[in-house]
């Protein structure tokens, strides 16, 4: 029941938003260059979809996004476990992680292209870099917040450090790890756009957006942005689903 009401409200919000957008674009702005109406965006989407261009672009972006995110996620968990488990290591590495988390890493894209070439490698690396630090920070926060009593239970039953880490701290931190991943994915989606802005790629959603912008094809620009948003929402929803499946005892997300 609650789920139905929630869904109905979200759907209503979406429909009203699109109607307002359509009315605003048609009667107030009246210039598709400044604001394309949803209908024009839809037409543009159908056009690029029919030509196969859209799917090709999505597949290219999705391929390095998936590989980069997965690498960033795994790297983040490892780094986070490492930092969470040892206070001394954490003190050495923490400033670097904090700096890397805060720094606008996308600005490194030109440099990464020089290092890794204009192909998919540089793009994969930038996505991985954007994902790894939020996951690291989430993992560390999760591991450090492990319930003291549970740690004592484990110790009292004879668990060594490795057991405690693997069987108590990491499971405890799972929700935090997935929260970090959600933030990372949001950053990664921005990364798709920026990587292809510099990237000299031949295909990709980011490239499609950039090309549309250069010829002032604003409906296509919107199509690209919406596709990226949907990709982001898709992965985020998947992560939330995983979190509910794997950590059903938490009634609320930790972040």
């Amino acid at each position: 029941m609650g789920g139905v009401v929630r869904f109905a409200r979200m759907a209503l919000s979406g429909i009203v938003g699109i109607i307002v957008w359509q009315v605003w674009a048609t009667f107030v702005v009246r210039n598709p260059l400044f604001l394309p109406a949803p209908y024009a965006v839809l037409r543009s989407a159908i056009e690029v979809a029919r030509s196969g261009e859209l799917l090709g672009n999505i597949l290219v972006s999705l391929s390095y996004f998936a590989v980069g995110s997965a690498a960033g996620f795994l790297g983040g968990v490892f780094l986070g476990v490492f930092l969470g488990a040892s206070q001394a290591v954490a003190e050495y590495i923490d400033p670097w992680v904090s700096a890397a988390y805060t720094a606008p890493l996308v600005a490194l894209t030109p440099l990464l292209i020089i290092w890794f070439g204009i192909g998919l490698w540089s793009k994969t690396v930038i996505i991985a870099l954007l994902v790894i630090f939020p996951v690291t920070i989430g993992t560390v926060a999760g591991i450090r917040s492990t319930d003291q009593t549970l740690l004592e239970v484990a110790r009292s039953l004879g668990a060594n450090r490795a057991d405690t880490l693997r069987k108590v701290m990491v499971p405890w931190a799972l929700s935090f790890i997935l929260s970090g991943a959600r933030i990372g994915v949001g950053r990664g989606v921005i990364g798709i756009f920026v990587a292809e802005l510099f990237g000299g790629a031949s295909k990709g959603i980011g490239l499609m957006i950039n090309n549309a912008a250069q010829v002032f094809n604003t409906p296509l620009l919107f199509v690209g942005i919406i596709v990226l948003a949907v990709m982001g929402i898709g992965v985020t929803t998947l992560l939330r689903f995983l979190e509910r499946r794997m950590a059903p005892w938490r009634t609320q997300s930790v972040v």
Partner: protein
Amino acid sequence: MKLRVENLQVMFDRAGDPPLTVLDRVDLEVQPAEFVSVVGPSGCGKTTLLRCLGGLQAVRAGRITVADRPVAGVDHRVAMVFQSDSLFPWRTVAGNIAFGLEVRRHPKARTARTVNELVGLVGLAGFERAYPHQLSGGMRQRVNLARALAVDPEVLLMDEPFSSLDMQTREAMQLELLRIWSHRRKTVLFVTHQIEEAVFLSDRVLLMSRRPGLIRKEITVSLGRPRNSRARHTPEFHALVDGLAELLSQELATPQRAAVEP
């Protein structure tokens, strides 16, 4: 196995202040398969005493032995039942009970057999795959007890395991504990702040003083075994409870004493 504590002293360091003496020369003995409770005013160091025996708290001085062999740190012969909600929420009932056996690297088949036995013993058959958040408080405490029994300790330490349960569940769990204990005759040291609980369960009740804690009095419980809930309505039971309550209120009325220097 016999548990013996001699001259146990524990101090807590406090920033800026002199260290706080929490336990001061505690002596006690629990005979093999004896059930002994410790009661005392809150803050008297009951839990600290248990944590020392469980190897979770460093001691300043004194000696703890099980079967005349010293206990230093976490010891495989000692298992602890913590207060409620100390189950691993991501593990099922069976997974929680198996934890100690897993980390002690018992073979899988034997672990499964032990877990199965204990699930039955604590009355949770059919709930093996349930998660703690799906269980009632009483059921969670059954799992908690089974998890400690699974590692087959010589000594079982119980730290107010029923304190968060409502009255009815609590009394039911006390009976359950006695039933389970009759099947697994461990040496038990049970900490509680409830006098009735201590009397109902125990062979002996130790009364602790206010902080710094030491054993002030020892009362032998004359009620026979096996006990059922009728034991709560006997004159002996009431006499013992009243006597202990009287001692406890006397203890609360005496001024706090200074710690003896080691």
